[in-house]
């Protein structure tokens, strides 16, 4: 679905110095997968994301979206339709005066006929659970609701892939949960490829594959269980592991035999329950 070949990207500072943001990054993301990208502020995550649909074009190397190179201008229209993006701040992404019109904005730009547009807007709003709000004014919605409207606007374009750049950073726990449930549904039920950039380790733990970036390079790329079991490595990179993973790791260090992937509260509680019961016998 998405492919980067030896991608290098630099920003030039005012003094004319080059700051390398992406350093020879190669990567392939399969159709239908759910990939989380982690890394500190400034590690290159967002810059990488902007390469996936040609907002940025690499200075060296190439990026392919759905097989189309992003550096060829003739492809851009189709690439931007098939690879949608949702950003951090919902307020910056909402343009119209009603929810419905906002979702229709992208379709109007594509020149989709009225009937078809109506159908697609309704479907998109239903898929994010915002259909009942279609006539509301966006500024009256909560952060999580606004973000779901922004997602609906992307879905209406029928993309094969959506890049989420810290979509929950500005939301409260409830809004975060709503957005994460929507993302999981898009991936699970509609088969949309998901790339999720996040600072929240509990969110990354819900993906199938975690890519960790540091100083413009990919330093880890594996299943969440594998990535988070390297607690020292993750901490050294300036990231956290989920609190229960950290707890189990501390117990393992003290000599307790805990096996398996301890990412979620439920698994962890079950494993500890078994150990505590064995001890009582």
């Amino acid at each position, binding site marked *: 679905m998405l492919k980067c070949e030896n991608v290098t990207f630099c920003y030039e500072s005012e003094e004319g110095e080059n700051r390398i943001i992406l350093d020879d990054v190669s990567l392939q993301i399969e159709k239908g997968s759910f990939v989380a990208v982690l890394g500190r502020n400034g590690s290159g995550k967002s810059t990488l994301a902007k390469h996936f649909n040609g907002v940025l074009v690499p200075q060296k190397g190439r990026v392919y979206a759905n097989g189309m190179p992003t550096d060829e201008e003739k492809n851009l229209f189709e690439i931007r339709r098939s690879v949608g993006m949702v950003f951090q701040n919902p307020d910056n992404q909402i343009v119209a005066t009603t929810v419905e019109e906002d979702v229709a904005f992208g379709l109007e730009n594509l020149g989709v006929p009225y009937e078809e547009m109506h159908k697609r807007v309704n479907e998109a709003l239903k898929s994010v659970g915002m259909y009942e709000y279609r006539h509301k004014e966006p500024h009256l919605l909560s952060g999580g609701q606004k973000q779901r409207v922004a997602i609906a606007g992307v879905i209406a374009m029928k993309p094969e892939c959506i890049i989420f750049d810290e979509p929950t950073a500005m939301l409260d*726990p409830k809004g975060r949960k709503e957005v994460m449930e929507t993302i999981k549904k898009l991936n699970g039920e509609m088969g949309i490829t998901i790339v999720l950039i996040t600072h929240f380790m509990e969110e990354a733990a819900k993906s199938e594959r975690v890519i960790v970036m540091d100083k413009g390079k990919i330093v880890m790329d594996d299943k969440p269980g594998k990535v988070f079991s390297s607690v020292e490595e993750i901490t050294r990179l300036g990231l*956290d592991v989920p609190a229960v993973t950290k707890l189990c790791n501390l117990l393992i260090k003290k000599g307790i035999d805990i096996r398996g992937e301890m990412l979620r*509260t439920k698994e962890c509680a079950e494993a500890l329950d078994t150990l505590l019961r064995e001890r009582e016998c």
Partner: protein
Amino acid sequence: MLIELIDVSYTYENKAPHERRALNNVSFKVEKGEVWGIIGHTGSGKSTLTEIMSGLIKPSGGEVLLHGEDVSKLKNPMSKIKGKVGLVFQYPEHQLFEETVLKDICFGPSNLGLDEEECIKRAKEAMELVGLGEEYATLSPFELSGGEKRRVAIAGIIAMRPEILVLDEPTAGLDPVGRDMLFKMLGDIKGKLCESIVFVSHSMDDVALYADKVLVLNEGSVLMQGSVKEVFERSGELEAAGLDVPQVTRLLIRLNEMGHSFDKTLLTPEAAADAIYERLKG
């Protein structure tokens, strides 16, 4: 006591068709030396409360006592509160505007009517406290990274030497290292300059780790307040109100439901690991 709110209420667009009650009879007080975490949903009144504490808006009802004096009825509460309570807004880095970091930080103190020399002295003191070296003084704030910009913005407030520093979601958008650095910095500031700190957060983990006292707001009213331990002992109520409790607390609650008995006010992985280890080996 530094500041005390007694039965404070606030209604947006009072008596207008869109009238909306944001705060309902909220009472709480900040004593010298305390760090308070304010937690609640979006729309629970957290930001409104910070604006009342710092005198930006007047309460519709109730009293705001600063050092025992009711400032809420004054025609201009700002004149009394200014310089005493410093408010750092959400994403404060968006408000930087001056040509250099030093000038930007001097803006607050210069509005207190201090002369230039004193402003610069205070700005330099503030820069040191937030960990910005002297080399930053002449840089444009717009050349800095997001984390550095946020520190400049905070320095601009503490250069006014407020007794209470109030921060609205100070860690939003920061990575874990940035978050830890920010709280460490707040600890330094509290030791050296401000008497007390009040911060608003969405993260129960942050509150659990860094606050002494917690105020939980729900739909404009106080749901609970007290020490971190007291509040997290009622974690069931917090969850029922749709608030996030720390993951470690969720784990301990689940273990207790399975028939074990752990102290569910252990908030950190370290403390919980020790308790579980003792049970396994004890």
